[in-house]
Structures are given as structure tokens and as C-alpha cells.
């Protein structure tokens, strides 16, 4: 029947047309290389004429005005006449990355002057050229006061692009009401009495850092063989059923409720949990240290103000006030002495001012390029679903 034929032809034509259009249209959805040259993405600084500063940071990461108490931020504004627009819109490194990726990748402005991201994400952004170099002459406090363990990360050895806001340690936590002391990461992955009641962090750099340390490798400088060995060791423990879960930020509840007996943990979380049964310990193999780093993105219009801010927070007194509020490791030398005046109780607080001995045990993870990072992330997710 002619109508039938015609209909079939129409259908076939539509199908072919769809394929053709798709083939033509699909390449348009590719994204070009997003590497930028920061030196070409500088704009005339308007810090003088427009005394403002726009900052993105993690939530609950800065002290606030309270009756009688003048916060560090308010003091900064008073001292400098700069108006700070401080937004706590960094909840997650990856999430923030996707938020600014389109602008930074295409060389347009993020409308921010400063934001703070964790080491590996900071490394990634610096690597793709999305971050402006700081003017060393404008941040003398940074270079003078940054604590040694944070001074030379592999991804920014001279702290030319970044300045730690706060820092923290990754180690082990256990519930002392339920289980004997856990001293080493090796215990965590092998001890039979913990079997099935251990959680690890999904942060590849934290967990794998420890796994490398167990084998005596240096997380900051390791070979592919060492990596493979560490992955294998973890896979073996995983397959043996040692781990209950791999977690993000939400592991403390399981530890407190006894679902998990021991876990890989961030020091601040355990301190803030306020449960005296939960003990954070530095593993015998070593401690992973991390920091959230302030950086100035390309096309920031108030870089000078941002630098002023960084310099300000590297004054020991200011740093002490901030550390007193949020109990993370203070990256500023001299802050411990300054703490005497701020809050004498906290002078000996190991979580804010780790001893030299503790700090000497800290390790950072090697800086990774995109391809390596992806391979390692994939290896690590493969372990998790082994």
C-alpha cells in the first residue's frame, strides 16, 4: 500500500535524519582544554578605588562578633577600611570546583577575590593556571610565620600561590568504651577484633597515604610499585571483610553509636564530637596533614586587598584568636605564645598546636597531575568496590 510505504519511508528518513543531526551536533558538546595562563588573566587592581574583598570559605570556619568580642574580620575591616563580603559557600572541594569550573576554565571572572580549598584541589587549580601568583612583598607575614610542616608542599613549594587558612591531621579514632587501644593504621586494617567494624575515608590521599606509610614508602614521593603494593594490601584487607564502609564526612556518628569500633578520622571532628569515649590517636606509621589554602583566582579585581587579608591572618595574635575559635591546627608560628593572652587554656592544646614531635611525623601526599590523579582515584575506588 502506497500510504504504508510512504509512512515507512518517512519513519526511516526521520531516523536517519536524527542520526545525522546527532553526529553533527554531538561534537559541539565537547569542552576545550581549560588550561589558562594566569599571567595573561590579570586585571588592573581596583583595591584602592574600590575597597572591597570577596571571599568564599568553608562553613563555621571563622570567629564571629559576640557581645564584647570583636571578631578578627571586623577588626580587619576597621584597620584597613576594606569591606569584606565573606560567604561560606564551600561545602565540598568537588562541588566548589564544578561551581567555578566554567568561569575559570573559559577565562572569565568568578567574581571572587579569594577562596580556600584543600591541598589536592588547590594543587589542581594551580596546575591548570587558574590561580594568580601572590606578590611576596605584600605577604611578608606568610613567609615569615608559616609553620615548617606546611611551608613547602610539593605542589607549591614556595607558597607562591597559596596560604593555608587552617590545617588538620588525619589519623585514627576509636571508641575506647568498646575496644582496646588502636595504635597503628596497620592495626586498623588487620586486627581481627575490629573485623567488619572499621571505616575508612573516601579521601584517596588520606587513606592511601597511610597504606604507603605502612610499607615504609613516602606518600610525598613514591614509585608505581610502591603504590601497587599499597593498593594490593588494602584490597586484601577489604576482601577479607575488615571494613564496614568508606565514608565522607559522616563517620563520627557510626563511631559514637558503636556501629564502627575504630576508623580513619580527622582530628577536629573527634575533638568537636564532645564524646569522651572517642579518642583520636596519631598512628604509629605517621600522620597525614592537610590544609585548606587561600588562593586568588584569575581575574580577581581586589588582589591587593586579598593579600592584605592573608598577611593580616598571619599575624600571630590574629591567628591565635581564629584558632581559639575553631580548634584546627594553626598554621602560624608565634600564635602559641599569642594564645596566652587570648585563651591560656588552649596554649597546650595539641589539636591547635601540635608538638614538634607530632609535626615531625606528618606527611603530605604527592602532588598529582590530572592523569595520575585520575588513575589513583580509580585505583582507590576499585579497592572500595573490590
Amino acid at each position, binding site marked *: 500500500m502506497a*500510504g504504508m510505504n*510512504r*509512512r515507512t519511508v*518517512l519513519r526511516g528518513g*526521520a531516523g536517519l535524519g536524527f542520526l545525522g543531526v*546527532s553526529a553533527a*551536533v*554531538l*561534537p*559541539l*558538546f*565537547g*569542552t*576545550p*582544554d*581549560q*588550561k589558562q595562563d594566569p599571567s595573561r588573566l590579570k586585571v588592573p587592581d581596583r583595591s584602592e578605588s574600590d575597597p572591597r574583598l570577596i571571599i568564599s570559605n568553608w562553613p563555621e570556619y571563622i570567629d564571629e562578633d559576640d557581645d564584647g568580642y570583636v571578631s578578627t574580620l571586623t577588626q580587619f575591616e576597621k584597620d584597613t577600611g576594606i569591606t569584606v563580603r565573606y560567604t561560606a559557600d564551600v561545602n565540598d572541594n*568537588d*562541588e566548589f570546583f*564544578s561551581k567555578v*569550573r566554567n568561569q575559570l*576554565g573559559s577565562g572569565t571572572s568568578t567574581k571572587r577575590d579569594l577562596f580556600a580549598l584543600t591541598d589536592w584541589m588547590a594543587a*589542581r587549580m594551580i*596546575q*591548570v593556571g587558574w590561580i594568580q601568583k601572590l606578590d611576596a612583598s605584600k605577604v611578608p607575614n606568610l613567609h615569615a610565620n608559616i609553620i615548617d610542616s606546611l611551608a613547602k608542599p610539593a605542589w607549591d613549594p614556595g607558597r607562591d600561590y597559596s596560604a593555608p587558612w587552617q590545617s588538620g591531621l588525619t589519623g585514627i579514632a576509636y571508641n575506647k568504651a568498646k575496644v582496646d587501644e588502636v595504635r597503628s593504621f596497620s592495626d586498623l586494617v588487620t586486627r581481627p577484633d575490629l573485623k*567488619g567494624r572499621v571505616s575508612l575515608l*573516601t579521601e*584517596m590521599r588520606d587513606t592511601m597515604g597511610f597504606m604507603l606509610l605502612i610499607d615504609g614508602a613516602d606518600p610525598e614521593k613514591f614509585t608505581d610499585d610502591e603504590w601497587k603494593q599499597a593498593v594490593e594490601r588494602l584490597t586484601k584487607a*577489604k576482601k577479607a*571483610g575488615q*571494613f*564496614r*564502609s*568508606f565514608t565522607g564526612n*559522616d563517620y563520627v*556518628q*557510626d563511631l559514637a*553509636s*558503636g*556501629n564502627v569500633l575504630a576508623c580513619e578520622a580527622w582530628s577536629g571532628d573527634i575533638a568537636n564530637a564532645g564524646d569522651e569515649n572517642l579518642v583520636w590517636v596519631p598512628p604509629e606509621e605517621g600522620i597525614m596533614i592537610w590544609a585548606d589554602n587561600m588562593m586568588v583566582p584569575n581575574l580577581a579585581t581586589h588582589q591587593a586587598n586579598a593579600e592584605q587579608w592573608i598577611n593580616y591572618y598571619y599575624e600571630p595574635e590574629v591567628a591565635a584568636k581564629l584558632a581559639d575559635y575553631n580548634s584546627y591546627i594553626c598554621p602560624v608560628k608565634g600564635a602559641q605564645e599569642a594564645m596566652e593572652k587570648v585563651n591560656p587554656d588552649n596554649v597546650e592544646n595539641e589539636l591547635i598546636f601540635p608538638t614538634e614531635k607530632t609535626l615531625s611525623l606528618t606527611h603530605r601526599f604527592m602532588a598529582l*597531575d*590530572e*592523569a595520575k*590523579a*585520575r588513575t589513583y*582515584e*580509580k585505583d582507590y*575506588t576499585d579497592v*572500595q*568496590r*573490590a
Partner: protein
Amino acid sequence: MATVDDVATGGPPEHRPRRNLTGYWLILPGALWLLLFFVIPFYSLLAASLFDPDGSVLTGYDVTFHVQNFGNAFWDYKEQIGRSLLYAALATATCLVLGYVLAYAIAFKAGRWKNLMLVLVIAPFFTSFLLRTLSWKLILADDGWVVDVAQAIHLTDALQLVNLADGDRLLATPFAVIAGLTYNFLPFMVLPLYASLEKVDVRLIEAAGDLYASPARGFLKVTLPLSMPGVVAGTLLTFIPATGDYVNDQLLGNTNTRMVGASIQSLFTKENDYATAGALSVILMVIIVAAVMVYVRKAGTEELV
């Protein structure tokens, strides 16, 4: 499509009335919406699945029609895909049984409590999905009484036998994930089931009884077939989102319960492997569409569509 065909095969064109364009104008907002929120994202996803797998933020992502992405993604994640389908199927089946009983009770037995019960069914929607799922962690906690009871009645043992749990616990097991999925998607099952059961004429059930059908047979031969539109809608509304769900397994499961949704999320955000993530999404979509088509055909709903 239909309109094109109608025009093409339509009757003699002599006195065709002036084209009424109102219909097209009415479609326009919907079509725009579809273009913006379905067609474009769909193409974007399809493009991602055909990216050069070595692409990165540094090098950019080119559409190189690297179709091996599909093979690789499928091969690497076949377990997660299978698991997602299995968990979703089990959760859907559980939802169907629980939901049917509930919907049946509301439609036929609730009397003046009907509205209240319906409100209760949707009440969980008043709090966030995440919070609700998190509260399951408390309920199923290892030291909680639910686990004690489950152990006492040997539920945990039974679950271990069928590989839905490992160890004497409920949390961080496949069982917990399936239970979470069941709980979260139950309203999507109950509401369409209720809507179709509500429409079933009780006089037909009486007629079945009059024609020698016992209540059980009457249910199987009359009530159930008449509620099939609800069964089909409910199972689809449950199964499809449950397959792609990535919250329940992350909060209630362990690393051996990883479903494909969580894998895709991790590929996109952590590993930055857009090619595999895209390919995996497309594969999942194809599997679901195929499964739905087979299912709808099997369920024989031609007269209901």
C-alpha cells in the same frame, strides 16, 4: 509523529478548514521545556559518553566518538549495574507487596480514615530525603533494639543465608539498602496503586463472587487485573528511580553494596572520568528503557494507555 502521518495519509484535501494553530501554541511551552531540560542535557550526556577517555580539565574533552567507552564502562561496572537492577527489583517487589496491601486497605477498608491515611502515606515527603534516610541509620544501628529483635528472631541469620547481610547486623548490608529504597519509594508505589484501586467498581467484585469466585479468586481475576495500570505505574515509578539511586547505598550500605548511581557520581565528581561516567549513564538509561518496554508490553496495558 502522529500528526505528520495523519496529514500524509489524510483524506482528500479539498475543503480542509483553515488550520487551527491553538494546539501548537499550547504545546510550545512544553516543547521548549523538553528541549531545555531533556534534549540538551541528553545530548550533553551522549556527548560525554563519546569523549576521548584521556580528556581532562587540562586537555579538554573532545567528542572523538570513542565508542569503546561503552564496552569499558559496562565491563568495569557490570557488577554495579547488576546490583542496581537487583536491588531495585527487590525493593520494587517489596514495595509492590507492601504498597498493594496498604493501597487496598485505604481504597476499600479505610472508610472515613481514607484521607488521613493518604496524608500519612505522603507525610515522609515533608522532611528531606536525606534526613529520612539518615534516621534509618539510627533505627538499624548495631546496638539498637531493632538489631536485637532481628537477631532474636533469626532474621539476621536468614538474611545471611540469602546473602543480604553479612555478620550479625543490619546496617551496612544489602538488606539495609533495599529496605531504605523500599521505604523511600513506597509512596510512589502506593499512590498510583491507590488511584487505580479506588476506581475499581466494588460491584464488579460482587459480580465475581456471584459467579462462584471465592474472594481470593475474585481478587486474582478481577481486582488485580483492574488495578494493573496502578501496578504498572507504581512499579515504574519505583523501579526507575531506585535503579539510579545513589543515596541509600551510600548511607545504609557498605562498599560491597555500591550501586551504579553512586559509581556514576563518583566518576563525575571524584575521578573526573566524564567519558566513563557518561557511557555508564547512557548504558543505564538504555537498560532501563529496554526493561520498561519489555515490561509494559508484558503487562499488556495496551487498552490502558
